[in-house]
Each structure stands twice: as structure tokens, then as C-alpha cells.
């Protein structure tokens, strides 16, 4: 690492020290998430002279794609490749732009206030509230749940988790590793793990045969896209890294207390192999919890098999003053997320009077071109790696809701009793009411109910989420400063008795 690199780390850690004292009580723009979209949005807002604050749960900027970009212990840059290191420039310009960065902070509420919005956040064991005139959500994506029998066993993780351990900690799994699922990230993780010496027993490819037929209409677009050459390289590396079993139709994780074996069905034959680690992955989906709780309108995206917020050209949502940028507004990848972040940032600067429409449009032109370039080929990837029904819509005793340990059969039985949707399902089964707040079961429950009721997932809808969107201790809430009005309300009730 060069000397400027070290200086950057120091400046970031200094910021970390003084969060609670240094935060102002109000900002022009609050941005949730310091990944590709959040960093780009913050850069544009701060450059336009807006008082900008960025909240992120991680201790270092970068989100998940550029996870630990300023702190990774990996010195061999080829290991993570140029697509990862692209994030360095993004962080550098973010640091220079002068936004306030609040790492290790969870935003658990965004509600309307007199001057815009009140943001509830929690960091270092303390909650606080502050105000912002505009809000940009850049909450990114999470890996699509892959509910197979035994997916809750220790020793079963997501492929993304293994990549995070590598990027952030230089940790490489030992023992017999099985990867399973579909999509580019699964292949990329296989290649990266092999490069650092992990022994991959096999990769169980659940991509249904014949998907290329559905993808074919989008093939020309894909061939002309930046993803084509990268995709070929990843495929080649993955084939070198692992024995790939194609056409896998069913997978079970087996073991007492932790993973010991993986059983799978391919070509009608059942096979079983010993395993110490099973890494699951079948694409990523928008992380919509905050947008959903704010009340932004969402729609079902049939191509991506997920709910996504409805947004305009500048990322504006159905709630005035709230914009959504990056994969949180629909999966399009890191470079598209960066472009969408810039557009949302420029629009905030326009709405708050820092840029007139002409200046905004001029500044937005390069981002629009980037967005167009990196949106090409997405339809092909979506069609090619559309996860099979069997791995999205489970049956029998397979756990759907990991937190409350609700099975697929319980959800199906409850639909048969007359339960019509995910919100009603909560009162029957507590499904989606555990600490993860439906992040790991929302899509599965919607699709299960939709199939049972023979309706489209969009007609069934998603859980209606409420604040706080992540559990926080009551003590933290109670310690928040109270307004005189709120105190009076309690005092009056006390006197009435």
C-alpha cells in the first residue's frame, strides 16, 4: 500500500472516532448506504455544496461489491480483479467531496417531519435522531434466499459470505467445499476461492437446461455489452476451479448440528458427497426493507422475480423527497448503481436549488451514458440465470422463515385455511416477524402463497414493513431526547388516573 493509501485509512478512522459529537442535527441530504450508489450520490451532493451525510452499517466504505476496499489485507490485486479495484477511485472522490460519513450506523426509521424527514439511527449502542431535507436510499442488494432442506445448518453459508470473508479478512475456507446454485457470482466465487488455494469438491449448477432459449432474444445485446468478455473469463476460470455438475434439480444439506453431507439429484440420479462447507447462491435481489417501511410504491418484476420500488429517471420514488439509487431500485450491477447514484445526487442538488435544470442535465450526461452502457446485457443475464422454481418455492419441512422456523408446508396449510397474503400470515405463523424482518423469507412466502392461490406474486404483495426496520434495544429508544410536548402527553395521562 502506498503512503496516500495509509493517509486515507487514517482519515476514515478519525471520522469513526468522533461520530456522536461531530454529527449535526440536520443535513440537506441523508444517504443510506455507502456502496457504489451511495458513494456516487454523496459525491455529487457534496460537490454541489449540499450538507450531506452518509450512513452505513459497515466500518469501511464500499458496500458489498467494494467491500473492505480501503482495508482489505489482500495485497495481490489480481486476486479480486480490476472490477473490484474500480471502487478505489469511487471512495477517493467521495472522500475529497466532503460529505460526512457515518460508519457502523444502522438507520432504523425515516419519517416525515416539518423540514423534510426525521432519520432514526443507531450506532455504538446509542440511538439518535436527525433531520434531512432529502433522502437517498442506496441500500443495495442481498442474496436471494435459496430455501433447500438443511439450509439453516452451521456450515451452510451464502457464496457472498465466503467472498466477504476473503475480501475483508483474507480468510479461506478449509475442507471439502461445495458450491451450489446459479448465476455469475457463484462462478466468480468458485474461481476466486480456487485462486487462493481452497479445495472445491464440486459446483452444483442448478441452472435449468434450456435457459439459453429464453435468453437467446437478448443475446445480441449481451454480446455487445461489457459483460460478455467478463462472463466468458469467469466461466473459463470456474471450469478450471471445480468439477461442475449440470442440471441439478434438488439439493439437501445433511448433518447433525452442522453440515456433514450434501445430497443432490441430477439427471434423475441421487448422489451424496461429504462436505464441510456448502455455499449457496442464486442471484441477488433488491434490499427493499427501508423503502417498503417508508411507504414507497413497489412492483413485482417478473424478469428478476423480485419486488422493486417504482422509480423515475432520477431515482425519485413515489414518496416526494425520497430517491432510491443502485441495486435497491432493481438489480443492474455495480457500475449502473454508480451512475444511478450520480443521477439521484444531481437531482437532489437541483431540487434544493444548487443546480438549475440545464446544469443538472449537463452534469448528468456522462452518468446517463454509463447507465446505458452497463444496462446492456442485463436482460440476457436475468433470463439465463433465472432461478428454477424448485429452488425458490420449497415444499414440505423445508424451512422458509429462518428466524421463526416456519416450514413451507405450514405456509401452504395456512393458505388452505383461508389466509390470503403475507401480512395475514404473520398473525398465523409469526412468519417474517423475527429479527431479520422478512429479508430472508419475504420473496419465498409471496411466491408460495401466489402458487397456492394461483395468482401472480404482484397480486399477493410483500410484507408491509414497519419501523424500526432492524431491532434496537428499548433502552436505546428510551434514552432518546424527548420533546416537551411528548413529556406533557405522558404527564396528562398520569394525572387523569
Amino acid at each position: 500500500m502506498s503512503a496516500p493509501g495509509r493517509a486515507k485509512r487514517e482519515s476514515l478512522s478519525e471520522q469513526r472516532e468522533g461520530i456522536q459529537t461531530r454529527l449535526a442535527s440536520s443535513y440537506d441530504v441523508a444517504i443510506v448506504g455507502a456502496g457504489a450508489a451511495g458513494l456516487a450520490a454523496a459525491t455529487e451532493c457534496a460537490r454541489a455544496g449540499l450538507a450531506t451525510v452518509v450512513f452505513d452499517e459497515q466500518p469501511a466504505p464500499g458496500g458489498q461489491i467494494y467491500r473492505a476496499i480501503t482495508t482489505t489485507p489482500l495485497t495481490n490485486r489480481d486476486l479480486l480483479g480490476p472490477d473490484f479495484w474500480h471502487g478505489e477511485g469511487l471512495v477517493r472522490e467521495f472522500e475529497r467531496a466532503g460529505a460526512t460519513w457515518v460508519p457502523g450506523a444502522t438507520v432504523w426509521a425515516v419519517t416525515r417531519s416539518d423540514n423534510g424527514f426525521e432519520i432514526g439511527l443507531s450506532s455504538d449502542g446509542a440511538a439518535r435522531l436527525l433531520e434531512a431535507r432529502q433522502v437517498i436510499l442506496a441500500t443495495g442488494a442481498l442474496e436471494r434466499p435459496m430455501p433447500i432442506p438443511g439450509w439453516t445448518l452451521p456450515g451452510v453459508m451464502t457464496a457472498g459470505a465466503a467472498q466477504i470473508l476473503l475480501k475483508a479478512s483474507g480468510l479461506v475456507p478449509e475442507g471439502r467445499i461445495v458450491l451450489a446454485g446459479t448465476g455469475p457470482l457463484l462462478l466468480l466465487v468458485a474461481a476466486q476461492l480456487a485462486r487462493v488455494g481452497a479445495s472445491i469438491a464440486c459446483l452444483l449448477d442448478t441452472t435449468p437446461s434450456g435457459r439459453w432459449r429464453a435468453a437467446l432474444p437478448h443475446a445480441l445485446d449481451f454480446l455487445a455489452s461489457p459483460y460478455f468478455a467478463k462472463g466468458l473469463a469467469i466461466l473459463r476460470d470456474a471450469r478450471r476451479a471445480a468439477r461442475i455438475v449440470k442440471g441439478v434439480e434438488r439439493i439437501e444439506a445433511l448433518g447433525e448440528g452442522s453440515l456433514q453431507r450434501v445430497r443432490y439429484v441430477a439427471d434423475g440420479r441421487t448422489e451424496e458427497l461429504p462436505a464441510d462447507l456448502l455455499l449457496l447462491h442464486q442471484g441477488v435481489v433488491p434490499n427493499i426493507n427501508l423503502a417498503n417501511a417508508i411507504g414507497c410504491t413497489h412492483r413485482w418484476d417478473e424478469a428478476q422475480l423480485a419486488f422493486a420500488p417504482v422509480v423515475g429517471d432520477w431515482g425519485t420514488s413515489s414518496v416526494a423527497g425520497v430517491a432510491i439509487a443502485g441495486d435497491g431500485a432493481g438489480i443492474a450491477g455495480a457500475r449502473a448503481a454508480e451512475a444511478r447514484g450520480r443521477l439521484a445526487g444531481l437531482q437532489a442538488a437541483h431540487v434544493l436549488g444548487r443546480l438549475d435544470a440545464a446544469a443538472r442535465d449537463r452534469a448528468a450526461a456522462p452518468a446517463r451514458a454509463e447507465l446505458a452502457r452497463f444496462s446492456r446485457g442485463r436482460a440476457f443475464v436475468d433470463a439465463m440465470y433465472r432461478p428454477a422454481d424448485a429452488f425458490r418455492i420449497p415444499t414440505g419441512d423445508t424451512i422458509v422463515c429462518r428466524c421463526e422456523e416456519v416450514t413451507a408446508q405450514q405456509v401452504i396449510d395456512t393458505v388452505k385455511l383461508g389466509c390470503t397474503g403475507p401480512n395475514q400470515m404473520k398473525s398465523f405463523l409469526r412468519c417474517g416477524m423475527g429479527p431479520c424482518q422478512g429479508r430472508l423469507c419475504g420473496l419465498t412466502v409471496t411466491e408460495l402463497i401466489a402458487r397456492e392461490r394461483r395468482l401472480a406474486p404482484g397480486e399477493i404483495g410483500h410484507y408491509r414493513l414497519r419501523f424500526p426496520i432492524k431491532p434496537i434495544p428499548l433502552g436505546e429508544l428510551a434514552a432518546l431526547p424527548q420533546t416537551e410536548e411528548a413529556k406533557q402527553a405522558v404527564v396528562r395521562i398520569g394525572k387523569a388516573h
Partner: protein
Amino acid sequence: MKRLPEAQASSIPVTIDGRPFAARAGDSVAATMLAAGVTACRTTPVSGSARGPFCMMGVCFDCLVMIDGRPNQQGCLVPVREGMRIERQSGARIAIDAPQGQP
């Protein structure tokens, strides 16, 4: 999990269930546990079955652990600190807020 040679830098002392472990500065609590070979970090309140870190990015809540006496902390979001006491937790936790030794 094994550590790549270039990542074997400065270590800080922590305890996991009372046993001393040399953690890597900068790692999360969940990464520290996995580096120590601890794959299961809790049992569930519903069935008592074992769980370990799953997503490593703060969404799944399966890596909940007790940190310095505070239960239900997301291990993957908390960076390790020198002298940290990390404990696996079993079943439902009582939501105590005051650190030990305080009223």
C-alpha cells in the same frame, strides 16, 4: 478457515467462551469466530437448533452472539476490539441493556 499469509498481521487478544484467541485487528466478531473454528455461534429460541454466520452482511441475524455481556449482537457487523469477551448464546435472550456491574 485458514488465513492467507498476507492477512496474518497484528493480532489482538479476545476470548471466545472464555478461551483466549488471537484475533486479527479489523475483523468482525463473526469472522473472528470462524477463524477460530467456531462455526455455530448460537441456538435458536424456537427449536434450540444450532446456527452459524450465514450472510456476513448484516441481513440474516443468524450470527447473533453475546459481546461483553450484551446479548443479540450481530457478530458480522461488530469489529473486534482488544479484550472483547465473545460468547455463544443459547435460545432466547433476556433483553438486558445495562452492562454488567451497573445498576
